[in-house]
């Protein structure tokens, strides 16, 4: 199955970033295709490359690893502007893009799942 994902909350404050990541890993393991992860509202902060969590899991790095595996991890450009996340602050294998990519993910997916909010 082709699955699209949207994440609405930032890292660490809520568990949604972790749940989305674990869901994506499990879905891929089961043979599903993730058409993309769209980071919207505070969700964009999950790919801030300056995240350095003392002694804890690195959520930005997790999304970068998903990107390296071929999953499109895209953050909304307008939400990024609101939050001071510049394009060069996005961790490698992720991108800052326009809302058109969300429309693409919606069109391409059989199921579209939202985390956070």
């Amino acid at each position, binding site marked *: 199955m082709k699955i699209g994902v949207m994440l609405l909350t930032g890292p660490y404050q809520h568990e949604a970033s972790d749940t989305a990541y674990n869901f994506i890993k499990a879905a891929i393991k089961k043979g599903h295709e993730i058409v993309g992860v769209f980071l919207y509202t505070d969700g964009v902060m999950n790919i801030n490359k300056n995240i350095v969590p003392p002694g804890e899991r690195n959520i930005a790095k997790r999304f970068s690893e998903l990107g390296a595996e071929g999953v499109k991890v895209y953050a909304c450009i307008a939400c990024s502007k609101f939050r001071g996340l510049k394009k060069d602050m996005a961790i490698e294998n992720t991108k800052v893009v*326009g809302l058109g990519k969300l429309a693409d993910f919606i069109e391409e997916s059989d199921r579209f799942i939202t985390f956070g909010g």
Partner: protein
Amino acid sequence: MPKRVLVMVRKSPYGTVYPAEALRAMMGLAAFEVKVEVLLIHDGVFLAVKDQNPEGIEMKALGAVLPDLDEMDINKFYVCGESLKERNITVDQLTVEAEVCTPDNFEEKLTQFDHILPF
């Protein structure tokens, strides 16, 4: 065939960014030819209440935006009747015409959408 998407607004228009971002998502998706319809439920029904005046908190009146969505072919609104009743709001207090649904009859409607985006 374009996907038919229901954007579900569950929160009051001010206090969190979600309803404002739901509106932005609706417009963005419609611009890319996604067929968007809207459900207002729980405190989300407050989004459509007329005569909002949030100038004191330096926000724009979000309810006034709903009628303008028609320009982007977003003109099908559903509203939860139970949520209206609990908040003492009537349909004539809303900025747009909306189909009043009950939790019972909405279950069947939900299955008609390709995707649901909850905000």
